[in-house]
């Protein structure tokens, strides 16, 4: 927190004149750091307020220290508050301007605050642990004995902690809830430097104790136990075992990966007691071939990542030479920050968040340019007032300060409203997922102190950005000049305003181009045939592996009951069980095809899923040949299977696949009875792979049924179906571990997530930016036309053609627009590189998008100049000449 604020302060130091920054910048930053360290976040408002007022003062004094030996006279920070009521009165008197300005700032600052919070939670401080830069994670899972050996290497690590995750059913007040849990080594919290919020954390004694101790996640305790401190010491039933709450982990700590949100931390040694299947065996902790642990180490000072990895690899080879299995890949270490963001996806996450940051910063800049423009127009209108005040002996610095104060008041109101906008943005973003499957909702973004501190800094920065120029110009106004006719000596000012318009057009073009590119790639993505139809389907995932009491008989009974009840719900067209949803998880195995000798190196892996008879109708996958599964394909009937089109073409080319038979294990011969269309298994752009469907009733395997998904296709509203379905599932078996109940569309959202999010966010901000730019263009053209009223009046009086007058104003208005468009295309072409990874089916420099966007923006811009141009051409020359 302090570091973030200090960096912000450091960045804002660039607002000072270079001479001061060079001489004292580091010392000022040091002061800010000390103040933050000693007084906490409470020091921040004062630091930023000081910045806000001393920046203009220093510029003023730097510019006006003509020959005076000592410009000590000047404003002090004491007394600026007198300007606030005056500024408020002025703003009250021009409500239209005030509302436009406040809304612009609220949207801009709010969006920036929200995206900054996201960046804080992913890029700046993804993990709330002590000194994260020293922490490394093993890239692949390791076995418990290997972990124990490596943990002894105190020459490499300060310590090595182990964590293994799973899902478990916790009974909370009689209701089962399926949650992520982490089994951790006793040194886990100590190594990460995470304190307890309440109670105590896990220790060595918990490894061997008879009672199982558990540490709760703070956010879960807050939401599920309503912050009840009495939870510590109570027992909770987890997977049928009673565990005792020892304590609550520190607020903000979310484990060591953003892709999971562990709600409970349990001792590693308790794992076999709480898990079923192969994990429910003491040998899970003894077998070197059984890898399920993520090892996290804190490097000793002076030990590099490469050194540690080398030493560990040497050990690993030595330990495993006796193994008959071939050695797997080298063990690699990665910084914990990479692991937290999903390892291989970390780069994508960073780029995506930066892209979002770019969008909102651009929008805010466009807003600031617009406001500076509006302010300039107002300053021009107030030249007389300022002139009078100067003539009466008013101090220029005071006038400048007053003009700045208006901006500060506007920015502050905008910032306050911006907090509401940020809250809305948090809700909007919570519907999305970052690349790599990080649910933004799980990050728990909110208006915390970081967000508030950032908002304060943004208010300060924007006030300076859009307030300094008008304040400067206002204060420089000559007393005499401003009392004379306004229409002269304004060319510099309209040049500045035209420049601001050009900048707005350019930045809007960048945002519009982004929207266009994402829209095109989104359209491309949704046109890709999936092989299933996720619309109007509700899905309920059951985590059987998480429930110990669920043996095969009870599971089967529940499956049957649930299916009967689901099919009776109103509007249900089809309902069926499957072990895996397309693109959500996958399972594959090697098969042997009867009567076919595999070529050397041929890959005979099939993706697999166990599905019930009505599955293909429920999922919306078309049957191309043969028959679907039938109730007759029961556990005792001969094994049958259905393959996809790719498998049929690859392995039974020129033959009838319905005559085909294949074997998963020796005695299990499966007769092919049908062929279905190909479905996506992971991502949109993958090549189709062979797929084998087996009857749900015949499913078996080493792990038994660990997971099942119920698909319910409805002809009505799928969201209305969800609560009804939950009721029926509970009625079928009140203890059934329902891990998630949501729509199929939501389950497969990751397929088009980056494009969808890109369209949504780029779209919202591009719309805002274009609106702002149109207002700006209109304002400037109208202003320039107003300045030339007298001239235009004379021209018309002398008989000038009105169409030519219109062309005159249009021409003048188009110059900044054309310049802005040209600059925008160049910037967009350069910046689009950032988005390359998230675009599909469209190159980042797609000429069609650029042309269409530029044409659209040009049309909007010309429309905005057309109105004042038309008005100017309809000017009544007599009235125009009579004024002044």
């Amino acid at each position: 927190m302090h570091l973030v604020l200090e960096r912000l302060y450091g960045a804002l130091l660039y607002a000072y004149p270079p001479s001061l920054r060079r001489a004292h910048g580091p010392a000022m930053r040091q002061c800010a750091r000390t103040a933050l360290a000693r007084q906490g976040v409470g020091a921040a408002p004062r630091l930023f307020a000081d910045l806000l007022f001393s920046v203009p003062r220093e510029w003023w004094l730097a510019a006006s220290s003509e020959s005076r030996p000592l410009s000590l006279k000047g404003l002090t920070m004491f007394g600026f508050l007198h300007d606030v009521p005056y500024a408020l009165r002025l703003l009250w008197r021009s409500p239209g301007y005030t509302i436009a300005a406040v809304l612009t700032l609220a949207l801009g600052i709010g969006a920036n605050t929200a995206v900054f919070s996201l960046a804080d939670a992913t890029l700046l401080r993804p993990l709330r642990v002590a000194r994260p830069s020293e922490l490394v994670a093993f890239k692949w899972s390791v076995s418990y004995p290997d972990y124990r050996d490596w943990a002894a290497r105190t020459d490499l690590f300060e310590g090595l902690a182990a964590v293994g995750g799973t899902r478990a059913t916790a009974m909370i007040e009689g209701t089962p809830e399926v949650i992520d849990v982490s089994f951790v080594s006793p040194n886990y919290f100590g190594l990460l430097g995470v304190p307890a919020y309440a109670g105590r954390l896990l220790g060595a004694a918990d490894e061997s104790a008879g009672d199982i101790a558990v540490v709760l996640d703070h956010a879960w305790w807050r939401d599920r136990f309503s912050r009840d401190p009495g939870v510590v010491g109570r027992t909770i039933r987890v997977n049928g075992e009673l565990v005792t709450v020892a304590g609550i982990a520190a607020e903000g700590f979310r484990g060591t990966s953003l892709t999971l949100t562990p709600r409970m931390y349990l001792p590693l040694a308790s794992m076999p007691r709480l898990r079923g299947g192969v994990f429910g065996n003491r040998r899970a902790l003894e077998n070197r071939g059984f890898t399920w642990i993520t090892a996290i180490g804190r490097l000793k000072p002076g030990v590099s990542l490469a050194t540690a990895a080398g030493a560990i690899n040497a050990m690993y080879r030595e330990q495993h030479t006796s193994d008959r299995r071939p050695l797997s890949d080298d063990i690699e270490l990665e910084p914990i920050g990479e692991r937290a963001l999903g390892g291989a996806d970390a780069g994508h996450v960073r780029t995506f968040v930066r892209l979002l940051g770019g969008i909102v910063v651009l929008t805010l800049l466009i807003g600031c340019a617009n406001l500076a423009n509006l302010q300039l127009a107002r300053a021009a209108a107030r030249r007389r007032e300022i002139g009078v005040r100067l003539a009466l002996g008013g101090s220029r610095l005071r006038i400048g300060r007053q003009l700045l104060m208006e901006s500060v008041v506007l920015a502050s109101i905008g910032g306050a409203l911006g907090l509401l906008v940020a809250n809305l943005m948090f809700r909007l973003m919570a519907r999305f997922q970052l690349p790599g499957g990080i649910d933004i909702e799980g990050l728990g973004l909110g208006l915390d102190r970081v967000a508030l501190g950032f908002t304060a800094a943004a208010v300060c920065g924007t006030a300076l950005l859009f307030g300094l120029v008008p304040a400067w110009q206002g204060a420089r106004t000559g007393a005499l000049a401003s009392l004379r006719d306004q229409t002269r000596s304004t060319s510099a000012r309209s040049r500045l305003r035209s420049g601001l318009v050009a900048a707005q057009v350019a930045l809007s073009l960048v945002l519009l181009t982004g929207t266009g590119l994402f829209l095109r790639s989104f359209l491309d993505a949704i046109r890709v045939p999936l092989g299933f139809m996720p619309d109007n389907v509700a899905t309920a995932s059951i985590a059987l592996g998480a429930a110990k009491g669920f043996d095969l008989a009870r599971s089967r009974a529940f499956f049957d009951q649930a299916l009967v009840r689901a099919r009776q719900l109103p509007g249900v067209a089809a309902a069926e069980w499957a072990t895996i949803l397309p693109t959500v998880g996958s399972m594959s195995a090697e098969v042997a095809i009867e009567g076919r000798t595999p070529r050397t190196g041929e890959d005979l892996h099939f993706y697999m899923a166990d599905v019930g008879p009505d599955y293909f109708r429920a999922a919306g996958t078309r049957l191309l040949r043969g028959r679907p599964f039938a109730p007759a394909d029961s556990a005792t009937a001969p094994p049958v299977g259905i393959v996809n089109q790719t498998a049929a073409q690859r392995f039974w080319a020129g033959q009838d696949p319905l005559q085909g038979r294949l074997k998963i294990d020796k005695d299990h011969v499966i007769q092919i009875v049908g062929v279905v269309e190909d479905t996506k298994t992971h991502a949109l752009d993958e090549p189709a792979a062979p797929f084998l469907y087996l009857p749900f009733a015949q499913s078996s395997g080493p792990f038994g049924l660990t997971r099942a998904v119920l698909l319910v296709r409805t002809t009505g509203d799928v969201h209305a179906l969800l609560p009804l379905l939950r009721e029926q599932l509970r009625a079928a078996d009140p203890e059934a571990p329902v891990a998630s109940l949501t729509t199929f569309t939501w389950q497969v959202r990751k397929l088009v997530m980056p494009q969808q999010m890109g369209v949504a966010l780029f779209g919202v901000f591009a719309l805002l930016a274009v609106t702002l730019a149109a207002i700006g263009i209109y304002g400037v053209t109208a202003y320039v036309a107003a300045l030339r009223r007298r001239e235009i009046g004379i021209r018309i009086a002398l008989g000038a053609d009105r169409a030519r007058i219109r062309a005159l104003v249009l021409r003048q208005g188009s110059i900044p627009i054309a310049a802005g468009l040209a600059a925008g295309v160049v910037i967009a072409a350069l910046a689009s590189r950032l988005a390359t990874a998230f675009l599909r089916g469209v190159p980042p420099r797609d000429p069609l998008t650029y042309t269409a966007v530029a044409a659209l923006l040009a049309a909007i811009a010309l429309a905005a100049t057309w109105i004042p141009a038309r008005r100017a051409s309809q000017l009544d020359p007599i009235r125009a000449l009579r004024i002044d």
Partner: protein
Amino acid sequence: MPKNMPDPRSFVPLTPAIAHILLALADQDRHGYAIMQEVERLTDGAARMGPGTLYGTIKRMIASGLLEEADERPDPELDDERRRYYRATALGRAVLAAETTRMATLLGAARAKRVR
């Protein structure tokens, strides 16, 4: 008082910031953060200076000869970081004396008229 020193009275009245900084440095050399703290203490928290105001003023005071940089050393009370210390020059002290005299005269006159 050295020769060629400008007349300290030409500097008064001082802005509050300058007066406070000179006052804070009257008894000992201090670094920036310590000056901020001392000003706050001297005025019972009524006058609070931020780094921008402080260093902007310090820069001008050095340029006009009221302050000079002393040495750079760590402050044992804060942390181990090295900090630049500042000291009031002879002129600075004379200016503070002139300001104090001015205010004392003002105060005397005000008391005589029972303003306060």
